[in-house]
């Protein structure tokens, strides 16, 4: 089998770019958490998110050491009367190294005089070059507001139930490698 190496592929005649290594998304990974999670001790206390959102198993292994990673979180916080304010911190680590917090944090505020409402929360952040081709792991931590900070992840109900995932939502982490 022959191999052709190039950093760009141009269209005939006008040289419009078909493909260019710099800036291209060269791979994508996903970690999802399907279970509903209720935490009533997270008011002003920091916790790892449940499952692979917070256990460090979400990972991507860059093909190129100078790539950047585009981090996207999609979470589904629910609410019970009267309000919930949740904040999320984002971390990465390279291989067996230490966790490093990056500026991908995000937040959710919900207020409703009944139970069961929810919102879908998406947040994206592009990390700088990590100078590695080793596996890069990601996790999210959550901390609640001191007066209304319970977590109701993946909990939603049209009838006001505090324990259902009627909408079949899954909270996820998406990781994309962006070549440079």
């Amino acid at each position, binding site marked *: 089998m022959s191999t052709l190496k190039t950093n760009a592929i141009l269209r005939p005649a006008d040289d419009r770019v078909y493909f260019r290594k710099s800036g291209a998304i060269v791979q994508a990974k996903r970690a999802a958490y399907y279970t509903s999670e209720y935490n009533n001790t997270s008011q002003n206390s920091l916790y790892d998110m449940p499952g692979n959102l917070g256990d460090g198993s979400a990972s991507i292994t860059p093909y190129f050491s100078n790539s950047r990673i585009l981090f996207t979180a999609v979470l589904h916080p629910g609410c019970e009367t009267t309000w919930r304010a949740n904040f999320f911190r984002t971390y990465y680590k390279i291989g067996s190294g230490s966790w490093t917090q990056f500026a991908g944090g995000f937040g959710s*505020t919900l207020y409703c005089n009944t139970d069961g409402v929810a919102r879908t929360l998406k947040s994206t*952040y592009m990390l700088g070059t990590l100078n590695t081709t080793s596996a890069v792991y990601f996790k999210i931590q959550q901390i609640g507001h001191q007066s209304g900070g319970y977590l109701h992840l993946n909990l939603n109900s049209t009838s006001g139930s505090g324990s259902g995932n009627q909408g079949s939502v899954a909270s996820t982490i998406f990781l994309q490698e962006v070549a440079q």
Partner: protein
Amino acid sequence: MSEVVVSKVTNVAGDYFIDSSQPGSIIQVQAYDYGSIYNNTNIANKECQMPGVLGDGSAKIEVEAGNRILVECNIHNGQHDTWRGNFFRMYWNGGKNDAGAGEYVTSNLNNNDAYSVSNPERPQNSLLWGGGASFSYISGQNGGASTANWTILTPPCDNAGTVNFSLTVTGHDNGNYIHLNNNSSTGSTGSNQNNFSSSIILKEVYYP
């Protein structure tokens, strides 16, 4: 120099495209972040430039003519007692925009003559159908935050070269302040406790 001219690039089996010659392929990504806390208490029903790279037009991407840009805005809005409702507009200089063109001219905002956004920064036909909104309500508490994230696909770019983007914010007439990137589990009104950074992410999308 040798030259290889192709119409498509596939894997060995020929059943998977590995080039970006298909319409809709993303061929580059750029990101611009603003990580400071920004408060503005004078935006009630008044359109104002967002701070730093979010609003000064320096968020940019180099594109080929005809391609489109997938624009993702990720804005973290802090909350102070009782509520905050903010609306965002997106401007560009990549081409004519047949939707919403010049809307600010006929805007029903009642402070048209007091905008801090000058006319050169929002010329005719530069307003995209690319706005977003955020709302947070907690009675008697501070420090909440809501992340607003929305994505738009621009019309085709008129010309090859740099395309710039800028965001403005307009506050609700009664709950109007903006507290960008402010968040605190203890109710602080001046803390970015959890390392929020608001951003504009630009992706060039191939359109032949």
